[in-house]
């Protein structure tokens, strides 16, 4: 078959015969993978030609463990300020005395006990909250009836901070563990719900059309199209939810707790032990940081098909 290309190919043929030998060799290196350094501007080039280098608009390569850099700098500054004697040890103890406090707490077993109490609270609240958020998002994202019943309610809940619900929850559930877990779960549910629901209802119409053209059953459509499309939204929600869980934890541990990191800090406040208070803060910060990193890790694995600007 010899098809006449002239009417349609136009400049396209140039891509086959290749441009390099047509261009002045001094200014335009071959287009095929020159190392970046080889592309340095050659000002002696023929008039009107510029080096084929574009400003890189992406964010560039990621720094390994780069996320740790900021917190480390902060600790370093704290250390320096303490050593220089700029900080009143009664108000803010030095990192060294915080480490000593942590050691003492560890030896007495109070540290492990408090961490365990707090972690199990936060984790339980998180699990219940995520499950509830996902179920509600599916109910309202996939059916009009569910949407009518659930969505408005959750939007109302969204505008009432958990703090405002506390008096009622304490009245209903007392000040025990149940109330604490419920408060944490409530905060988590909303974050998961809002983002997962938004992702479910904003699915690309072109994919729905494809699913119809392929005659997918409703179940396959859900499994292969809707849920994968909603996963990025779910993960956004999950990262917010994890933050919400720690926040909820800190709030509920201020209320008559008899165990946990918050309780440990409250007692330290009574005896003006700023070292222990700082141990608690560092713990909260570390857990928040580590859990976010964990969610990101899982997100990266699950959404490996995504090619984003951070890649």
């Amino acid at each position, binding site marked *: 078959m010899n098809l*006449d290309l002239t*009417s*349609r190919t136009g400049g396209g043929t140039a*891509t086959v015969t290749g441009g390099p030998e047509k261009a002045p060799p001094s200014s335009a290196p071959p287009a095929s993978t020159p190392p970046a350094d080889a592309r340095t501007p050659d000002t002696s080039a023929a008039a009107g030609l510029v080096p084929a280098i574009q400003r890189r608009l992406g964010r560039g390569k990621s720094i390994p463990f780069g996320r740790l850099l900021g917190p480390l700098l902060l600790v370093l500054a704290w250390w320096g300020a303490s050593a220089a004697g700029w900080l009143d040890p009664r108000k803010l103890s030095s990192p060294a005395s915080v480490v000593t406090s942590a050691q003492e707490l560890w030896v007495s077993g109070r540290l492990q006990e408090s961490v365990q109490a707090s972690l199990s609270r936060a984790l339980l609240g998180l699990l219940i909250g995520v499950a509830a958020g996902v179920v509600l998002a599916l109910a309202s994202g996939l059916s009009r009836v569910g949407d009518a019943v659930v969505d408005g309610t959750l939007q109302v809940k969204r505008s009432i901070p958990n703090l405002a619900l506390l008096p009622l929850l304490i009245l209903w559930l007392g000040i025990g563990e149940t109330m604490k877990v419920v408060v944490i779960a409530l905060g988590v549910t909303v974050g998961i719900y809002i983002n997962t629901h938004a992702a479910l209802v904003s699915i690309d119409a*072109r994919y729905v059309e494809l699913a119809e*053209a392929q005659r997918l059953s409703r179940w396959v459509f859900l499994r292969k*199209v809707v849920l994968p499309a909603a996963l990025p939204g779910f993960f956004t929600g999950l990262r917010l939810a994890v933050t919400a869980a720690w926040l909820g934890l800190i709030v509920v541990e201020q209320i008559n707790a008899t165990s946990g990191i918050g309780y440990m800090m409250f007692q330290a406040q009574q005896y003006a032990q700023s070292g222990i208070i700082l141990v608690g803060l560092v713990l909260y910060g570390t857990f928040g940081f580590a859990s976010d990193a964990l969610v990101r890790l899982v997100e990266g694995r699950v959404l490996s098909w995504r090619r984003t600007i951070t890649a």
Partner: protein
Amino acid sequence: MATYDHRLSDGGPVAEAVESAAVRVNGLTRSFGDRQVLRNVDLTLARGEFTALLGRSGSGKSTLLRAVAGLDHTTVGTGEILVPRRVSLVFQDSRLLPWLRILDNVVLGLPGDDARERGRAALDEVSLGGRASAWPHELSGGEQQRAALARSLVSEPELLLADEPFGSLDALTRIRMHRLLRRLYERHRPAVLLVTHDVDEAVTLADRVLVLDDGDFVLDLRIDLPADRDPGDPLFQRHRTTLLGALGALPDDRTKDTEEPS
């Protein structure tokens, strides 16, 4: 006017009515607002017939194709459309799901235990056998469209609908895709309805070319050329001129002006 329910053709006694024809359309109208895009269109496609649908931009080609594909749930209109049970659709974009690997995209919705085997065979047919586990974004535009072609053929359709499937490809890739499509067509023999605005593409590929203008067909042209077509052939040129005339795209055309319908 009522919204037409395309599901009439899904099985049931109506499907039996389709015997010699692959598509039968009677009195099809479609409107957007007050604008009637299709006016009482009748169309019969024979089994195994390769038909190209030409028309100016906005002439209603996609509207007709989407109606035949049963995808225009919300469009207002009347008429009867009968299609075979197995219909496949190729879109202008490859429309691969980015979260499924190529093979999983190809077998999406394909029933049977041997689905993956058939998917691999279909990928081999479009020379993508080695890319089964690649992500869609790792493929070039032409490769993506070949994967989409594999997805549409793996179900052995009796009717293949395609809306400008090569519109986004460069000219050379497009010519290779023409040969591929023609080869696949000759092997599988589905009826094909190919929407295009490229006259050469229509004459190169199809055995019959329909021209849509102002809501109805203005030309139904048989292309009696050998399978391996030479654009230099005088008959090829004559068909080309006829079609360009019907499209109002000839410089010395006196019967029709070339301005876009409003």
